[in-house]
């Protein structure tokens, strides 16, 4: 298949899936068959993308010119392929998990759930493969809107309030900052196409360039930089599969991915290197890492602790991009992958615990490891990855981040990484310890979660380990990103 056909299929399949799921709403078995099958087909499609891209091609797909000079155009480049592959790889697993979770918890509106889930993946694919800012923005908003029904899924007051915060902050940042930033770029640069080396060099003086940069950085609310991070904990009212795939992978990664994309293809690292505002963004990211980790320490609700951990881990990517060293950029790209595998495992485990025992608080988890050995083993691997201990994937990306900081003698960055690693340990180690070594506080009788859930979380835990041992493909892709050649 040619590159552009692959792109077309990768974009089309989720929407096709959504349509099929909607049509088959009443035939539950058949519907769930589609829910499992379509992601697998998509995986087969995106798995073919790295080949041509690593060979130096840039497959693209031009759909239509929406307004003069502004077109819907998609292009596969290394960073986008990484993101597309991560989402494509995790979607089938998450689908399996979703079916188990929704059935296990007897959730209502399952068809709506699966339809919106597929649409959200469509949005994520659009973000990953967008060839210009306007296409990316459209897909970005699609992702926001299609995940809203998933967050509001339960329909009770808490869910609706959480969903309101979610939508409010994401739209406030995207309409209030990101869109003006894109418009501004369009007015000064005359183009919004992603171009290696950027499109803004010499178009604005340093002060205005700094303002534009800040507009982008805060406009991309999905990257959850403080103080626009509150939507992420709010989104935790959603059913766990949503938190797992969307709020640990698709949505938040779309945020940091866009951030890196803007750094590499809109500003260009050269422009940012001399810019004072780059240091501010670095500082904001560093502060977010430390503050979010500290808040995570104090959360007793498992999903909320994971959410704050996500906020902190996302800022690793942003910080990695703004260290502005080739190696740390590779680290940022790798961290998108590593964190995705690790965090989805953690959320899967949280959902498994909830499904099997209806426990949501960390203080209730004493001794649960022996009742749910698979789940807690996977959880432990995920936690190791978050902390960055081999043989989990998180080590790899942190290593590259540190190398980059070392290379540019960025002492601050190194310090932040080290402190945050300590904090990560401080909030994950107690959970692992309690689960395996403390005696159970109650004598609740329950076993493992449904088998679909256990398979799913074992797979993602395995991926976390595999990535450590076989990092060649993502590493090769990361090294193909412009600006990462030392």
């Amino acid at each position, binding site marked *: 298949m040619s590159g552009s056909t692959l792109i077309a299929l990768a974009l089309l399949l989720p929407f096709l899936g959504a349509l099929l799921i909607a049509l088959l709403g009443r035939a539950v078995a058949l519907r769930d068959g589609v829910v499992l099958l379509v992601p697998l087909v998509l995986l087969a499609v995106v798995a073919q993308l790295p080949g041509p891209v690593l060979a130096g091609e840039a497959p693209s797909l031009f759909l239509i*010119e929406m*307004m003069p000079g502004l077109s819907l155009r998609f292009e596969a480049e290394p960073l986008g392929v990484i993101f597309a592959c991560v989402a494509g790889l995790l979607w089938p697993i998450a689908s399996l998990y979703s079916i188990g979770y929704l059935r296990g918890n007897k959730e209502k509106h399952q068809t709506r759930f699966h339809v919106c889930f597929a649409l959200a993946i469509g949005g994520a694919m659009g973000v990953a493969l967008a060839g210009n800012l306007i296409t990316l923005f459209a897909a970005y908003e699609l992702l926001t809107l299609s995940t809203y*029904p998933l967050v509001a899924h339960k*329909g009770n007051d808490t869910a609706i309030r959480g969903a309101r915060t979610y939508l409010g902050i994401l739209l406030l940042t995207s*309409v*209030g900052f990101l869109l003006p930033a894109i*418009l501004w770029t369009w007015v000064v640069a005359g183009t919004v196409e992603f171009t290696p080396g950027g499109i803004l060099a010499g178009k604005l003086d340093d002060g205005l360039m700094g303002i534009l940069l800040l507009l982008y950085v805060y406009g991309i609310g999905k990257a959850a930089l403080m103080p626009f991070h509150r939507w992420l904990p709010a989104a935790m009212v959603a059913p766990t599969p949503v938190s797992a795939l969307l709020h640990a992978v698709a949505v938040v990664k779309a945020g940091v991915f866009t951030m890196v994309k803007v750094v590499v293809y809109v500003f260009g690292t050269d422009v940012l290197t001399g810019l004072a505002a780059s240091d501010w963004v670095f500082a904001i990211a560093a502060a977010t890492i430390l503050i979010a980790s500290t808040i995570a320490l104090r959360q007793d609700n498992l999903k909320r602790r994971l959410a704050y951990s996500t906020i902190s881990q996302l800022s690793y990517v942003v910080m990695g991009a703004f260290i502005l060293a080739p190696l740390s950029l590779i680290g940022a790209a790798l961290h998108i992958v590593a964190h995705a595998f690790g965090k989805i495992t953690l959320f899967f485990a949280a959902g498994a615990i909830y499904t099997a025992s209806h426990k949501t608080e960390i203080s209730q988890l004493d001794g649960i490891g022996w009742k749910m050995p698979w789940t807690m083993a996977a959880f432990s691997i995920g936690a190791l990855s978050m902390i960055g201990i081999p043989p989990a994937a998180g080590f790899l990306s942190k290593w590259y981040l540190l190398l980059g900081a070392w290379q540019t003698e960025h002492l601050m960055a190194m310090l932040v990484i080290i402190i945050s690693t300590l904090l990560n340990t401080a909030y994950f180690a107690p959970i692992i310890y309690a689960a395996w070594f403390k005696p159970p506080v109650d004598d609740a009788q329950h076993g493992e979660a449904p088998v679909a859930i256990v398979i799913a979380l074992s797979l993602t835990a395995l991926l976390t380990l595999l990535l450590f041992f076989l990092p060649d493909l993502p590493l090769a892709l990361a090294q193909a990103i412009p600006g990462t050649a030392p």
Partner: protein
Amino acid sequence: MSLMEHLPILVVIIPLLAAPLCVLADHPRVAWLVALAAAWLSFAAAIALAAQVSATGTISYQLGGWAPPWGIEYRIDTLASYVLIIVTAIAALVMVAAKESVAREIPGERVARFYAALMLVFAGLLGIVATGDAFNVFVFLEVSSLASYALISMGRDRRALNAAFQYLVMGTIGATFILIGIGFLYMMTGTLNMQDLAARLPAVADSRTVRAGFAFLTIGIGLKLAMFPLHLWLPNAYAYAPSVVSVFLAATATKVAVYLMLRFVFSVFGHDFTFGQMALHYILLPLAMIAIISASLVAVFQENLKRMLAYSSVAQIGYILLGLAIATTEGVTASMLHLFNHALMKGALFMALGAVVWRVGSVRLADLAGLGHYMPWTMGAFVIGALSLIGIPLTAGFVSKWYLVTAAMSVGWWWLVPVIAVGSLLAVIYVWRVIEVVWFRPANPQLAGYGEAPLSLLWPTWGLALANLYFGINSDLTTGTAEAAAAALFGGLR
């Protein structure tokens, strides 16, 4: 092809003749068929006219063969043909939806007269657009206004009478101001033909009479287009009018008033006089900004959804005037784009509410909890219209806002960007209240067993909703026409 030559008048005459036919028939079904046929014929005529204009340029038609400036001239240029298409297309769709909706909301014995009045409004609006004669404008304005007072008063709610009366008073003041303005111009130039006026005005532009005439006209038209703070008649009128009338007026009447504003500002007085000597943009700009923010804010607190959309219309008119106030080709292009796109989104939204009224009989937010499960198609169209209203990419609303912001930025008015962004965010708030209640709240038990609206209401609604998407993805047609019309307004009349 003699028929083709007479298109400029045919487009107006068809609905004008349909009105008495409706009364004569005095049978609900026949009257509806007559109105439907008239609307679609006018639509066809408007398309043919647009094709003709884009092929051969501006058409000048002499009524009764009397040459201007003595006779009445009908003049169709790009702008006029563009607005004619908007009005006739909406009318055509509204008439399809009208059958069921009117049968539900208007007592049988009044239906024929209802259609007659609707046809008069329609004819009046088309006449305002087609004519090139200032006094003729006033005549058609009165035709459409008087008929619309009657239509609004036919609403089921007794408050409709009050709303109609309020509109009658305000509308009459507006029309009188317009008449006085035209009179002043006539005093100074001795002509009523717009082309002729444009030619003679510069010589006398420096007189108090002309300036006063300009002021009267601006305020008169401002009343008609619900320019803040002259918008007070609009919310009640839209909220209590029969559904069909709300759709039709919201999507067309204010648009025609904006057309009139553009016509007088650019074609009659000329850009230099309006913005140079009279500095109209200094008045329009703050008013438009206040309209966007304050009307959106008020919309947030409305319980009656039709009222909410009505306030939203006031805000949207603010966007249109903002483009006009920027007073560059880009700005006017943005205005005209939004003219069209707003007709699409408000048409879709009001029509979806029409379906809700048909089925539920109420548009109070509290009554509609969980309605999405019973009327998924209707509320689906509502969501698309709402997204377009916010200006989400790939909808028509995004295109017009994009143009508006680039126009503002290219004249260096970057401070307009936050105003537009805040307006959009307020729109998120007021439409999302509805989406939340309709789709995610547990269903109102009174709604149990309710099904979808009839197909004849659904497909025009979805036609408009899909148009919102189509013109958001492929805006060639709209941006091309709007740019051409704006360029003509600036180019031809310096």
